[in-house]
């Protein structure tokens, strides 16, 4: 017996020595294969992982003592997070990527046809290639951990599931669910996965025991999986589940080709409507699924690998992957850890912004004071926080108990009581310098010395606000975007007096609130507002030239903006837009000209302040989805009518007039040092302003479109409109030297 054990441990030890990513242990007649990438927080299907996995599987298939297999990750929180992106990015041709895909397909085919049943025991992220691996196994068991998610996010990177995902999922889930999963890329939580039939069995997470909860949960999952594997090998657990009535009906209906055709058409139309044809991946996904279902697996797998290769080479995919990397970068604190952890926040102003900031703070454990000047304002703000959390309860993403305990972090009040314990003030009062000054002085009288004063403004320079501060090193800008709970971006603005620790603390708070953060220098409009203002000024000019708001929206969304320019103005608020246009106009002069500010002012005078007032460019009626153009606004535009110049007024010209001003201003921000890096510029534009994600942000756009071509277009517009289209020096440098790129 002893001898036997030593021999076995010796063998296992030998495996561990040779292999770093995959090892296995034989428990009776079950082989437990454990994955653990020693160099990363998550497991990815890297070349190394794949090679070792193949070796291990071959050994197991060749071992007669083994009847079944359990596949599990030793990492808490990650089964396999997907394929190794670097592996794909290292390829230079579509054929190479197709090769990778085919390798994956072959490996998973062997797994699928394994004579010994394989149980995928999933704890943590099971995404992309990881999910494709799991669905080629015979049986899947997942933990109910919050970290356990299943999904194919490839589409969000401009790719498709290239290792059998487009072929197996439709068979497993039926066409509608499979399309939904692959085309949206959304993550599916364990209970939903069980309902859909994506996993067979769920395992609860465990609390404290004789080991840490994470460790013991993985062990427990393994125990349950080993039992299931034995059951499968002994045929005590059937592999095919008895189909329910609904399933039978669905299968029957799907057996008619015209029904399937109808589904393809519907899905295709939906995709076209949502992507305007700017994203190739979803369309290719439909093709792959269709090829597999209609022409059989050979055609399906071939289509999958070929389209995968082609997609990997598209600029859209590169842009989206760039954004993914950028987002990861902007989720880190590049300043050191702050000296003091902020625990208590005090938010001034319970308006839309203030309450939104409170909402994303209370559920992260910040003790949050929400202060307003009136009881009505405070009540509205607290209701907004409650509603935001209660909606999450309704969607079952949090329990009613969690909602209540989050709300217990919120204190609503009208006075400065308790401010002496605040670690950070976030001021979200009306955008008026004198009011901001008044508030700053009032607050500084009551807060402790270490407390940071953050001001939430979209355009007022922070140094002007800080001018009246006794401690300007503690003053910083935190520009949130509305609605705060939905918009991921936070733009942090530092003045030359802001201390590093203040910045570090603001970033830490923002990260805890779940934000993607860019840190920019101070100046009128900072980065985001400054880029948006010229584009909106151009939009107003376009409207003055007689382009219908709907047409303008169509042109902008047609370029890839998620929200049209006219709608965006309504969302931001016409009054805010007018305010900003005027302020920035004063600061930057004629470069920020274009449309007549009076147009906006007149609209504001008439009460057309955008969505919030019910009327702007459009008329908004509660409960109605359809929006009509506000004819009274058209009358105003008529009175400020400009004659379009035919040479620069084609649809495409209008699109480039809007975009080039945006992009030029972004590049100028980098040139002036407002931006620290192109990555932050791209992230800020996409996540804060809705710059087309398929273009990857203004800087990546310049790289892929070509700075020279952009300059050429701008010169043409410059001739007609003047300095609003004068390319900045950095852009000219890039135009002159094509080897200069913002992104390597």
């Amino acid at each position: 017996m002893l001898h036997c054990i030593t021999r076995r441990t010796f063998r296992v030890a030998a495996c561990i020595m040779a292999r770093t990513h995959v090892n296995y242990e034989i428990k009776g007649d079950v082989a437990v294969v454990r994955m653990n990438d020693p160099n990363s927080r998550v497991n990815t299907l890297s070349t190394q992982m794949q090679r070792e996995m193949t070796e291990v599987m071959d050994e197991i298939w060749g071992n007669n003592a083994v009847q079944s297999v359990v596949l599990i990750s030793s990492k808490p929180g990650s089964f396999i997070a997907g394929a190794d992106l670097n592996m794909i990015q290292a390829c230079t041709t579509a054929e190479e990527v197709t090769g990778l895909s085919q390798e994956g397909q072959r490996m998973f085919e062997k797994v699928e046809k394994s004579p010994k049943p394989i149980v995928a025991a999933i704890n943590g992220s099971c995404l992309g290639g990881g999910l494709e691996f799991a669905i080629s196994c015979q049986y899947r068991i997942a933990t109910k951990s919050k970290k356990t998610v299943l999904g194919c996010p490839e589409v969000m990177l401009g790719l498709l599931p290239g290792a059998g995902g487009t072929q197996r999922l439709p068979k497993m889930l039926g066409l509608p669910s499979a399309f939904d999963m692959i085309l949206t890329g959304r993550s599916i939580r364990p209970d939903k996965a069980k309902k859909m039939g994506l996993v067979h069995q769920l395992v609860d997470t465990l609390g404290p025991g004789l080991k840490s909860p994470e460790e013991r949960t993985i062990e427990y999952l393994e125990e349950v999986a080993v039992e299931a594997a034995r059951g499968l090998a002994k045929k005590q657990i059937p592999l095919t589940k008895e189909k329910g009535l609904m399933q039978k009906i669905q299968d029957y209906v799907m057996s008619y080709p015209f029904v399937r055709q109808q589904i393809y058409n519907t899905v295709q139309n939906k995709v076209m409507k949502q992507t305007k044809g700017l994203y190739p991946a979803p369309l290719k996904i439909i093709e792959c699924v269709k090829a597999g279902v209609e022409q059989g697996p050979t055609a399906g797998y071939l289509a999958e690998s070929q389209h995968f290769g082609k997609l990997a080479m598209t600029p859209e995919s590169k842009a989206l992957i760039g954004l993914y990397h950028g987002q990861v970068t902007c989720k880190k604190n590049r300043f050191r850890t702050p000296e003091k952890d902020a625990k208590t926040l005090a938010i001034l102003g319970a308006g839309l912004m203030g309450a939104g900031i409170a909402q994303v703070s209370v559920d992260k454990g910040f003790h949050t004071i929400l202060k307003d000047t009136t009881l009505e304002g405070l009540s509205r703000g607290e209701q907004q926080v409650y509603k935001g959390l209660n909606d999450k309860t309704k969607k079952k993403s949090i329990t009613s108990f969690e909602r209540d305990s989050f709300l217990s972090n919120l204190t609503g009040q009208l006075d400065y009581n308790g401010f002496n314990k605040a670690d950070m003030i976030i001021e979200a009062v009306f955008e008026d310098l004198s009011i901001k000054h008044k508030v700053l002085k009032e607050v500084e009288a009551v807060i402790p010395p270490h407390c940071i004063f953050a001001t939430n403004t979209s355009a007022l320079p922070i140094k002007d606000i800080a001018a009246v501060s006794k401690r300007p090193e503690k003053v910083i800008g935190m520009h949130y975007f509305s609605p705060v709970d939905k918009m991921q971006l936070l733009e942090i603005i530092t003045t030359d007096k802001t201390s590093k620790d203040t910045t570090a603390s603001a970033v830490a708070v923002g990260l805890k609130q779940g934000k993607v953060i860019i840190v920019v220098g101070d100046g009128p409009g900072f980065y985001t507002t400054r880029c948006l203002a010229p584009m909106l000024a151009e939009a107003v000019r376009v409207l003055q030239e007689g382009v219908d708001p709907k047409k303008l929206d169509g042109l902008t969304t047609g370029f890839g903006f998620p929200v049209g320019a006219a709608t965006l103005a309504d969302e931001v608020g016409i009054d805010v837009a007018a305010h900003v246009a005027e302020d920035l106009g004063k600061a930057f002069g004629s470069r920020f000209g274009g449309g007549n500010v009076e147009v906006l002012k007149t609209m504001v005078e008439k009460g057309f302040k955008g969505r919030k007032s019910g009327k702007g460019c459009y008329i908004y009626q509660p409960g109605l989805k359809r929006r009509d153009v506000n004819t009274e606004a058209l009358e105003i535009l008529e009175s400020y009518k400009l004659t379009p110049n035919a040479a620069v007024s084609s649809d495409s010209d209008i699109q480039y007039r809007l975009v080039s001003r945006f992009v030029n201003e972004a590049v100028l921000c980098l040139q002036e040092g407002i931006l620290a890096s192109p990555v932050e510029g791209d992230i800020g534009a996409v996540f804060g302003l809705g710059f087309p994600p398929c273009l990857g942000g203004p800087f990546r756009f310049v790289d892929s479109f070509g700075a020279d071509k952009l300059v050429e277009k701008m010169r043409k517009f410059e001739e007609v409109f003047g300095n609003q289209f004068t390319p900045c020096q950095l852009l000219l440098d890039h135009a002159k030297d094509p080897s200069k790129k913002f992104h390597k």
Partner: protein
Amino acid sequence: MASMLLTSLRSSPLTSVQAAQFAARSLGTSVHLQAQAKSKKTLAKPGVKNIVLVDGVRTPFLQSGTIYADLMPHDLARAALQGLLNRTGLPKDAVDYIVYGTVIQEVKTSNVAREAALGAGFSDKTPAHTVTMACISSNQAMTTAVGLIAAGQCDAVVAGGVEFMSDVPIRHSRRMRKTMLSLNKAKTLGARLSLLGSIRLAHLAPELPAVAEFSTAETMGHSADRLAAAFGVSRLEQDEFALRSHTLAKKAQDSGLLSDVISFKVPGKDIVSKDNGIRPSTMEQMAKLKPAFIKPHGTVTAANSSFLTDGASAVLIMSEEKALAMGYKPKAYLRDFVYVSQDPKDQLLLGPTYATPKVLEKSGLTLNDIDVFEFHEAFAGQIMANLKAMESDWFAQTYMGRKTKVGAPPMEKFNSWGGSLSLGHPFAATGCRLVTTVAHRLQKEGGQYGLVAACAAGGQGHAMVIEAYPQ
């Protein structure tokens, strides 16, 4: 006498290490230590009243839906109270106060203590209130009584608990309730008709009470199964423990040890005088059962969980002087007690683990000093998990902020007359059963200290040290 000899033999070889530990821990108790050298010290504290358990009784614990099915909760409570009066011969007006526990409330008798007391013939001048603290409700009733006596406000208090699972309040849906309440206020026929017209079929679906945590929505059995898994308690261990409980309970029942049980004439039915949930089975039979909560791989089954039970219990608690003055021979001293609470999700049923070291520390005792353990058995898995937790230094250090483990009770001293798994568990009646059983076991087995510990919904727990009354 023989048993006393045995006890002293058993307890005398207190190793020098233990004695040293003891001395090191409580330097202030050297006087007690000297006393210990001869026999065990008494836990009486200067300036604190001695409070005694005069006696305790309970109705037979019956599986819900059986012979008690047509009663109401206060009927059972009444039976227990009357039984206590009979057993003790207590004059009805000698009681200063009555505290009673209950968990699932019958809305008609929300202060079930008062209704039962009146029905049992107590003086209508004796005030009564009801407490609730899930499965430790009657423990709360008893410690409330202890508090009243210790504070000098009362001398004789009756405490108890009742649970009646044969009938539970099943409510109309909230929407329906709202409509019905508005109907009361509707003045015109038209208004009434329009309200009636607003009723939809879905509103008629009733709301059933569940043994689930409000904060986590997890049923207790589910939590117990997870707890067992967290501590690596196997199905076999659980079944074995459940079988042990039933076997010991059967033995205790057959040898007449369960003397706290009173006979109860159920109106319209026969006299009941025995618990009816004790069913020693075989390991094979138990192994056949499917898991009840976590399917298909869970380990908690109907056979290794406590079952839904109807029953009531009552105890008479007095100051020692008063008891002696009234000519009683008390059964035990009620000494230190603690309440603890922890995470209601992952540590829902770990109350005994947290409470035991705390109450021992308070009393200046170690686990070895305890002669009789009575722990509430909610689930076999829960007991086994608690035993493992108490036996783990890692758990004590990581989660309880203690330097070392408290240790697990030796099985020969543990629930040796059966427990909640076999005798039944009428939620709010169990606490008094545990305390009375400790007193009876101390008398029977000749020990000096007993320990009661229990877990309760809400992630709470309780423990109490009981000292034998000198015989």
